[in-house]
């Protein structure tokens, strides 16, 4: 595989894209760190193009969770929305900081509103990614059935290879 010698953005082959899913949880931060350590060493950012994507839950869906009928929903929505935006910005920011710390520049960070499963699969399609990296909350079978598992869905439905990085349980 020819490493391109010129620094211009002309590359002989299209650069493979790696999409990493991030959210507020520790698990995804761990997944991002693990990926950076193993795949983006020493600022070698010429192999994979890194795209970070955060799926922001939409305000309506979050309020909807509070209960099917919520009289004051209309007033609460803008507040919930700005709150979610702040959280999303914070997540995106800390992820970008992490990348810079590992000297990986040139990272695309996207915050998309919607259900994580669809957002991740759509992002993969948009960038024609070769790998999708997700963390895993490590739910057991029952939690998984009730809460649903994004990593599971992506492993089955994404149009590319999926890497699931689990945070090791620290009870050695």
């Amino acid at each position, binding site marked *: 595989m020819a490493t391109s010698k010129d620094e211009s953005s002309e590359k002989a082959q299209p650069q493979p894209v790696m999409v990493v899913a991030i959210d507020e949880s520790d698990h995804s931060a761990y997944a991002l760190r693990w990926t950076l350590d*193993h*795949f983006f060493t020493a600022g070698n950012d010429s192999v*994979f193009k890194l795209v970070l994507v955060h799926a922001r839950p939409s305000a309506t869906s979050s309020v909807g969770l509070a209960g099917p009928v919520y009289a004051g929903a209309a007033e609460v929505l803008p507040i919930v929305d700005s709150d979610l935006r702040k959280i999303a910005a914070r997540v995106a920011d800390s992820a970008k900081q992490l990348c810079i710390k590992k000297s990986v520049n040139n990272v695309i960070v996207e915050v998309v509103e919607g259900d994580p499963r669809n957002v991740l699969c759509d992002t993969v399609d948009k960038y024609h990614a070769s*790998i999708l990296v997700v963390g895993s909350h490590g739910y057991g079978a029952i939690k998984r059935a009730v809460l649903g598992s994004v990593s*599971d869905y992506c492993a*089955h439905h994404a*149009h590319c290879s999926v*890497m699931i990085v*689990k945070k090791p349980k620290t009870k050695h």
Partner: protein
Amino acid sequence: MEELGGGVDQVRGGAEERRMKMKVMVAIDESDGSFYALNWALDNIFNVMTSTSTIGTSTHENEGMVFLVHVEPIFHNYVYPIGPSGAAFYPASVVVDSVKKGQQERSAALLSRALQICKDKQIKAESVILNGDPREMICQAAEQMQVDLLIMGSRGLGKLQRAFLGSVSDYCAHHAKAPILIVKPPDEHHKKHS
């Protein structure tokens, strides 16, 4: 890039020692999917390491290590009726032995094919043959060898098939402690994609 190499190389040199040596385990079976996974993994993951070593002046060999693991399902000794009336039963040991031998030969052929692929790409590889239920054995092996990444192919089963046939990659994705990479076969998805 190489003109700038002079000053950057010293940094790179130190960084290369810091570089993580990835221990990777790839699950192999007869399916094309697992060989595709092996090739894909070797191309995409290990070139991360080769590209750093070609840019720098040091001649680090590829530091990654691949463990190829093949699990043979246990062959059950079934009992075969013999004799005209079927009154006498004994496990046909001849049958059992020949099946076992066939299985071993097949495993050996598979793994040697996989090892050859690794050798062609100049990546160190070792092979392991295990017996038992593929799902558990793969997860156990990954844990015992403390691999950094477990790589599996995927047969691309649909939901229903997955529920009935069971999926080894599914099981491992849930139960393996190590990060797992599931490589999908190249797409006929593009046709379905509207």
